[in-house]
């Protein structure tokens, strides 16, 4: 077996495994609980829900 194939087989197992591990972690860590609140994590006091944050520049 060539070095290239060994490298690829190892990589495949690692990458596939990492996807499963990431999914498992996301469940264990509670990432998939309270999904409704999770959608609000990109908002904060500065830029709360209900505030638009982009517009065309105004004319002089």
């Amino acid at each position: 077996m060539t070095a290239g194939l060994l490298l690829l087989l190892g990589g495949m197992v690692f990458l596939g495994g990492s996807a499963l591990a990431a999914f498992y972690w996301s469940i264990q860590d509670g990432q998939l609980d309270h999904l409704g609140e999770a959608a609000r994590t990109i908002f904060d006091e500065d830029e709360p829900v209900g505030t638009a944050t982009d517009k065309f520049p105004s004319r002089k």
Partner: protein
Amino acid sequence: MNPHSLIASFHPANEPDTLASHERAEIDASTRFPVLLFFGSAIFWLLAGSLLGLVAAWKMTHPAMLDQMAWTTFGRLRPAHLNTVIYGWASASGIGVGLWLMARLCRIPLIHSRLLISAAIFWNIGVLVGVLGILAGDSRSIEWLEIPGYATPILFVAYAFIGVWAVIMFRYRKPGHVYVSQWYLFAAFLWFPWLYATANILLIWQPIQGSAQGAVNWWFAHNVLGLWFTPIGLASAYYLIPKIIGRPIHSYYLSILGFWSLALFYSWNGMHHLIGGPFPVWMVSASVVASVMMFIPVVTVAINHHMTMLGHFDALKWSPALRFTVFGAMSYTLASLQGTTMAIPSLNTFTHFTDYTIGHAHLGLYAFFSMAMFGAMYYIVPRLTGREWPSASAIRWHFWLVASGILLMIGSLTIGGALQGLAQHGLAGSFKSSLEYATPFRWLRGISGFLLLAGHLVFATLFALMLLKPARRKDGPALLAATAEANPEPAI
């Protein structure tokens, strides 16, 4: 800000520090140099790629044009166009957007910016050497992998740097929820170096034999779209749409389902390019099934974006970033559903080997991805430079030029391609007439290239003014106080 050496940041035994709390503006500012470097080079390659594409397009109707010099023959210009826009424009703009989003979503200032600056330098050298190599006649004639072998390691180094950086950023992120955009970005930054390395090992370093090369080729080429550009484009849309209109994603559950189903199904799709080819039937069939299963992630995204926008469509009038992003998001749905139908073997026999496929490719890479990147840049650049865009009407010109250009291109290629397919099957004249059917539509496609190039020139000028012009500086990041009510300009 650089809390540790690179090795220390990456070493698993090293506990990540808790970094102090940071303001959004501070995080944005920390990304300034690397992100603007990637954006600037992306826009340079966009102009180069548009020009190459324009000349290649007119050669379809004027075959004798510029045929005296080997460098400007179609067989070199066309792959040079493809690689310039894929690796030069789309990847670099995607990386720039990804860096900014990663920093915002990790809620920490960007660390190890020197790693990213080196990546950007390697990147540009790799694309330059690669595209010049193609023009000089060193193309490897493997679609999407034409860049000659002496340039690919340079590109790989750049990709790998970014992958390493993404791991470090993710490690040092603020505790809390990992937003859906971050899943997409982190995955894209890890998947792409792997895709690129695998394809190069199996096709160049230790080439596998025979038709299996075709399978690797299309596994790679389709995954560039599906596991590199798509996640970055969706990450941007999933962040910017709710952020701009100030409304959380309609169904966060669907967004997570969409991510994991994309991860599960997309990498199987490539073989649908080889329907009818010399492959075991199961390989192609599995790919066709996976292509149909792509319906799930696509529809989750489509429902989510539409329902989030519902009742807020007037925002398209006052937000330039949103206008481009929503154009991109709608095109994503269209491109993906069209792709699913094109994977169905009975339809594929008609669309394969016609301009229909070229239209589909531009729907995905331009109408979806490039428009999403324009939108993101309109949002990001003012926050990095602290200035407003210099001209609202120039932004409108940019939008309408490229929107009409790309719609004309896709429309003409799709109709011309469908007629070609019918003629090739003897359902609309002879096989030879397939060429005659295509010609007028190729003229229209050539015209659309001028519209796109003009739009890109407007955008490049705007970007250059943002970097160079010192006028109109505001105190905080520009545009932060904008609201729908405060905007006096409903004009489209």
